[in-house]
């Protein structure tokens, strides 16, 4: 519909008139409509040549020598800090203290140094300083958002939280009660129950099999002294990764980091957990409960972020179940058959057990059929592979969507931390689209054959099932 000059427009008008006479209005309309070329719209757009200045520098704080990746962005007077202490996540909790990392994450903002919980929160709210902590499986993460006006106070408060958390008894008891309650309520929603059983089934006694919130009996026992020991032993400059983004430069950023992380020990914490050993034998353990739908969560073994197969496998997953409505699984099971509201897959990159995970929910009457189609599509994926066009489509998406991740300053800081965790290099943001561009259809087909296999899909299904033969209801 967009024409480049008047001459062609006149020619098209003439053509349309002739066609109108011959085939009638409807035929003409579809012919005319069929002429839409998206490439022309993109080629001729007036919004060209916009770029994102993705230059990342590595800074080193002057006093403590803390290294961090910095992306300077002065569009708003905001600073976002993201950091993580590696190998201190909930899987690293002592076996008799399951849940302590999560408790620490909840309690670090509950008062520090001379400031009791309420006083500290009031101070931060009035200055719009936002701090949060989270205990992941592998790492313990933190984030801070502040305006540049209050950069100094923000550094001071965060430093106190990391080095002198109060863990006052009343706060400790309250947070305990909240976590114990949350632990019970996990079973209210089927998808939470599914995840918990999935973790147990995949990992058994391995720490990855734990409930992320911990064990009730352990949580009850945790004391302020235990939490202080946790902080002292786990947080160090040696296992620290830092991403910094916003209106801050190498100099002010370096001074800020010195202030935030002052007082942390330099030594790296010695901690390790064994590799996870999962038996991928295609079993689906059944959990019986009645909700609106049945659900499935299953996984195949995959590879880590730095493995040479990462990019082709990432692309293969995108085509199989990662592409939203356009993925093969969605097309077949949702769009064609209407069996589910959503089926999805993703690469889960935990340190000890990278997985390719797939899941969906469907009413009991649709469930078996959807499952059958999942297996069928997986077989087809392996047997027939993907063609050049499908690869090109996936690569186009992955490349063209690249800038979307820079929508928020907090997200940028998080990416900077992840770049260090996975050793992606300072120039990753410039190079990432080249990595995608180099993926060839044959690479993708090779990894499909290597990693995809329905007989490996192991996990859990939940819902209402017909009793098995010989089983009494």
């Amino acid at each position, binding site marked *: 519909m967009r024409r480049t000059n008047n001459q062609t427009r006149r020619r098209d008008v003439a053509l349309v008139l002739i066609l109108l006479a011959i085939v009638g209005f409807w035929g003409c309309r579809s012919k005319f409509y069929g002429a839409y070329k998206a490439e022309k719209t993109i080629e001729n757009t007036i919004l060209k040549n916009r770029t994102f200045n993705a230059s990342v520098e590595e800074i080193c704080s002057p006093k403590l020598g803390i290294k961090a990746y910095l992306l300077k962005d002065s569009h708003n007077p905001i600073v976002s800090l993201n950091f993580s202490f590696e190998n201190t996540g909930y899987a690293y909790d002592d076996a008799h203290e399951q849940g302590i990392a999560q408790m620490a994450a909840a309690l670090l903002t509950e008062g520090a140094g001379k400031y009791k919980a309420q006083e500290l929160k009031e101070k931060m709210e009035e200055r719009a300083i936002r701090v949060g902590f989270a205990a992941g499986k592998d790492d313990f993460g933190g984030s801070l958002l502040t305006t540049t006006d209050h950069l100094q106070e923000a550094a001071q408060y965060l430093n106190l939280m990391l080095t002198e958390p109060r863990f006052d008894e009343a706060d400790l008891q309250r947070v305990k009660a909240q976590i114990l309650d949350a632990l019970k309520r996990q079973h209210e*929603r089927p998808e939470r129950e599914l995840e918990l059983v999935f973790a147990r089934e995949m990992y058994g006694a391995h720490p990855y099999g734990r409930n992320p919130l911990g064990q009730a009996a352990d949580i009850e026992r945790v004391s302020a002294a235990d939490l202080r020991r946790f902080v002292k032993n786990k947080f160090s400059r040696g296992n620290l990764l830092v991403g910094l983004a916003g209106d801050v430069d190498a100099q002010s950023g370096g001074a800020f980091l010195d202030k935030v992380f002052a007082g942390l020990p330099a030594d790296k914490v010695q901690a390790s957990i064994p590799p996870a050993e999962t038996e991928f034998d295609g079993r689906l353990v059944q959990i019986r409960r009645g909700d609106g739908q049945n659900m499935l969560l299953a996984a195949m073994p995959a590879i880590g972020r730095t493995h040479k197969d990462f990019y082709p496998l990432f692309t293969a997953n995108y085509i199989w179940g990662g592409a939203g409505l356009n993925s093969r699984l969605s097309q077949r099971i949702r769009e064609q058959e209407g069996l589910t*509201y959503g089926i999805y897959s993703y690469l889960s990159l935990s340190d000890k057990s990278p997985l390719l995970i797939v899941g969906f*929910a469907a009413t009991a009457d649709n469930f078996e059929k959807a499952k059958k189609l999942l297996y069928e599509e997986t077989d087809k994926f392996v047997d027939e592979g993907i063609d050049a066009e499908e690869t090109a*489509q996936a690569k186009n998406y992955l490349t063209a969507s690249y800038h979307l991740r820079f929508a928020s300053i907090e997200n940028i800081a998080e990416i900077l931390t992840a770049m260090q965790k996975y050793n992606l290099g300072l120039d990753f943001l410039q190079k990432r689209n080249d990595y995608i561009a180099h993926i060839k259809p044959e690479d993708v087909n090779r990894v499909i054959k290597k990693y995809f296999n329905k007989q490996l899909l192991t996990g859990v299904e939940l819902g209402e099932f017909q009793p098995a033969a010989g089983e009494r209801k």
Partner: protein
Amino acid sequence: MNKKIVLGALCVLLPRLVAAEGLFDAQEFRLDNGLRVIAIENHRAPIVKQMLWYQAGSTDERIGAGGSAHLLEHLMFRGTKLIPGQTFNTLLEKNGAESNAFTAYDNTVYHQLVDVGRLELAMFLEADRMKNLDIGETDFAAERDIVFQERKERVDNNPSGRFFEAMNRALWQEHPHARPVSGTDEEIKHLTRQDIEDFYKRFYVPNNAILVLSGDIDAVTAKELAQKYYGNLRPAGKKSIRSDFSAPPEDFKATVDMKMPQIRGNRVVKIFVAPSYQKQTEDVYSLMVWAAYLGEGETSKLYKKLVLQDKVALNVSAEFNPLSRSYGTFAISAMPAKGTTPEQLLAKIDQVWNEEMQNFDQKAAEKIKRKMLAGLVYMRDNPEDAAYIVGAMAAAGASLDEIEAYEQNIKAVKDADVRKAAQKLRAHAPQVTGILRPEENTDETNK
């Protein structure tokens, strides 16, 4: 009737507003066909969020055809006469767009986050499906099944989803908010293609929509492109977008006491029918201040008194939502602590409301307003958030001046206004009290 007062106040404030910095410094214009366009500049990354807000949602459905608005939202991804079948999705995918939509009581919203170089494609496609939608019988049947599955996933898999539906039915009575946005199971099963086409033809017109472009685009370009892609769409005649639904009568009080087998611990919720940008607008900012003071975050009065001091609750929060074409809501939710019954907790909540209403003086007002206004600059960070906030407020009837003047409007709130608004709500607003309990009352938390 109160509109005049607000307008008068705005006129007085206006000279000051122009000089002051707005919340987003957005710009607004209207195309000849009536499409309202709002552009919000944010040049950090070369991306733009396009959101098209239709002023039509479940509120506007024919009685008995619940779920029409939502099913139409789904079918909008299933092809037009020009862009058939799945082409819409594949074109956007090839071009790296994140594309989605949602349906609410008063609006149906389509949105894409795209690299700025692909914005024109997204605009072309969005404009195309405003007029050329082509609903095939097979697609219709498949998509009706999909929205049925969606309802199961969102409501039936989530016990508190069912609880809130029951509360809304009890509270809103004859008002459209009583009906779930998704439609009920039976309604979804009986929807016809005609229901969807009627809804589409009636409401999907430029003079019933708001286009928001937020990101790496200036207002002049936004206007040029809006004109180019949406300018040729023809407006429909005067539509009757209703907002005059009657609320339950003053002093109406309902109770929902529900037990569900999945539930592991009690919770209580109180919802009041509240002012909005359309109704009793003079109380909107006062109630924002009241909600923040009473129950937003862990320094709020409810949290301090019920969680920290009296230890009768594990959590408590208040939320005021004035974004509605008719009435807003003011809600309080809480989870009782061990040893406290839901009834005791509800009584405590009422007690705190009453005490704090009397304690709320000028000093308290200034303090909470300072907190509410700290960090407003964060609003300028993420173009997606900005598009959502501006779109939702505009769709609820707030003018751009009003949206921009948030800071001034909050500052202008007087402690006496807050006490009055809070008192009016508590004493006279229609309200529902809900208790959700485990099926077997053997749990120790209920003792």
